[in-house]
């Protein structure tokens, strides 16, 4: 297990000076991922906040090789990089050891990129796909994705006389990836560096594809005070809104059980995107969101053999 101090002494592979927002949850996750291995890396990112903010020509924040291709195809792109690596290794043209990481936002992963992701995972490429889930298309200004929670006020589900925000339950992408029966699938929040580091290291270490789904709060989209990113992540775990678990070679394991499961309102309260839910006529949305969280938590407990 890595020590935080040791990690802090490693050379940065994603340097400061990039243009992600102050308080953004994404760069912390990205840096953690890159620090979880000493191997050479090729990183890919789908079009989105991480990509546009770290590679504004002629600058790049990436100290390892990086490729951006398009929005929906980072998984296919990195699968091609990995295939090239295998081919060139086989032909003796490459000596160095490389690992491969693909980053995608929830829009680029749950929605437009799910085909490319599913294909790359199913084909068994030795790569790690990390979805940084900020629960909407944030780079284009907070439009709803299939990861957006019920009741969220987004720019395509604006609150109005006839609307309380986004409708319907979130897609359970982590379970969908587990159903691919790949070696390693996990999800976690961005506050718990130990858990994050362990999962990233495990994902990079297993042979074959691995998928991580990491909740990354978004200051302008979720509308909260930027200093609260870590607190908000923690509340997502403590309310079981975003449980931390892993599926290692088919074995489901719960990694965090809150001592006292907090009500989902504790997670909603600090966020402007849910502000309207706190007027009486929208109580039913909070109730429904609580039911969604409870249902998924119960299902997870069963899957993890806790019930």
């Amino acid at each position, binding site marked *: 297990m890595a020590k935080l101090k040791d990690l802090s002494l490693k050379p940065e592979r994603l340097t400061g000076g990039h243009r992600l927002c102050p308080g953004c949850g994404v760069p912390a996750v990205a840096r953690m991922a890159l620090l979880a291995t000493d191997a050479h890396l090729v990183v*890919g990112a789908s079009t989105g906040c991480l990509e546009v903010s770290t590679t504004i*020509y002629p600058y790049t924040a*990436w100290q390892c090789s990086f490729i951006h291709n398009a929005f929906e195809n980072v998984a296919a792109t990195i699968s*091609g990089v990995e*295939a090239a690596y295998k*081919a060139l290794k086989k032909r003796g043209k490459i000596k160095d050891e490389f690992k491969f990481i693909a980053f995608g936002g929830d829009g680029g992963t749950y929605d437009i990129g799910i*085909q490319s992701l599913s294909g*790359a995972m*199913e084909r068994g490429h030795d790569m790690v796909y990390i979805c940084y889930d900020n629960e909407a298309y944030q780079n284009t200004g907070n439009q709803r994705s299939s990861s957006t929670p019920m009741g969220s006020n987004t720019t395509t589900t604006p609150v109005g006389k006839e609307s309380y925000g986004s409708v319907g339950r979130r897609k359970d992408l982590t379970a969908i990836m587990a159903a691919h029966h790949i070696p390693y699938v996990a999800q976690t929040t961005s506050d718990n560096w130990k858990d994050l580091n362990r999962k990233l290291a495990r994902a990079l270490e297993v042979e074959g594809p691995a998928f991580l789904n990491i909740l990354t709060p978004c200051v302008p989209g979720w509308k909260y005070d930027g200093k609260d990113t870590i607190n908000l992540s923690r509340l997502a775990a403590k309310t079981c809104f975003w449980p931390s678990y892993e599926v290692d070679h088919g074995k489901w394991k719960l990694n965090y059980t809150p001592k006292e499961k907090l009500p989902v309102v504790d997670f909603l309260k600090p966020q402007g995107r849910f502000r309207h839910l706190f007027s009486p006529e929208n109580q039913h949305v909070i109730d429904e969101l609580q039911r969604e969280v409870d249902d998924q938590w119960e299902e997870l407990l069963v899957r993890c053999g806790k019930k």
Partner: protein
Amino acid sequence: MPEQLALTGNEAVAHAMRQINPDVVAAYPITPQTSMMQKFADFVADGLVDSELVLVESEHSAMSATVGSQASGARSMTATAACGLALMWEILGIASAYRLPIVMPVVNRALSGPINIQGDHSDSMGTRDCGWIHIFSENAQEAYENTIMAMRIAEHPDVLTPAMVCLDGFIISHGVESVTIYKDNLVKKFVGEYQPHYTLLDAKHPITLGAMDFSDFYFEHKVSQLDGYNNSHSVILDVGSEFKKTFGGGECYEFFEAHKMDDAEYAVVVLGSTAGSTRMVVDDLRAQGVKAGMLKIRVFRPFPYEEIARLLAPLKGCAVLDRSIAYGGDGGPVHIEVRSALYGQSPVPVMLNYIYGLGGKPIEPEHIHSAFKDIQEAVATGNVKRRVGYLNLTE
């Protein structure tokens, strides 16, 4: 000794791929390309190549993975047709902008809709401005040879531009012909090793590829891409003449084949397999004393404007055959280019345009004869009845 084999066009191209033995091949089925990648998969299964064959879940991913692998310094290929090429469209422009010399056989098929699986040129014409080189083939032999030459053209350090090798769906892809397959070692030597300038897999020199390019650099980058593209013009000729020197054989290693054009008064301009029947019609007409000729365009992109202008300007009349429509444009895409090539020439020939063969509609010698007749008539009477017409359309 080269081998003489009875092969379909798809098999012939698969043999070129076997000889090239790319590092990575991405494959996805679509009629009429499917049997090409099936043949290549046989070569993989039999250990005749050791390429990494990536069986992607779509053509979008085929092109995306090919971009990833070529950017990693691996020689990478894929092949497609019609809807598959349309699905790749977004990534075609990324491949060319990243200067990745991917070579892709395109088995030309009508673009949906309505859905149709037979040959026309609407698919590759839809990708005309994606920054790829487009080389057309008349038959299986040319499709085979063009695939080998395209590798050298695309990878040339002054060019670094991806290339499509176009072959007509079914007529070439599925028709069996006698094809000369050159010796493996000679082809391998001709193609050589891929020497990438930059790769993602260079541990000592990591690179960032695909950065966000704003208005302070984007335009400049596009023009530098265009400069590289334009360098292909002379490289195409050089590679063609080296190919001819190495392998002998063949006819069409330049921008076009000019059949009986030296003293021609009337000519038909054509792409792809229809050149076969056109050549026959020209020879018939010659026997009847008509000074007929044919211009078979091999390289549609970069379009050889000056060379074509020189050849066509002295004619009395010509007819351009187009196997696709340029909606809202002046007939078909080939016609538009040929007219543009002749701008500034004086005098210029009378020019007619015929759309033909859409969705696999047959084109018979009689139809080409009728085109020649129309031009002769238009020249004789000075009266053009219909500038853009159709061949074998039930009206």
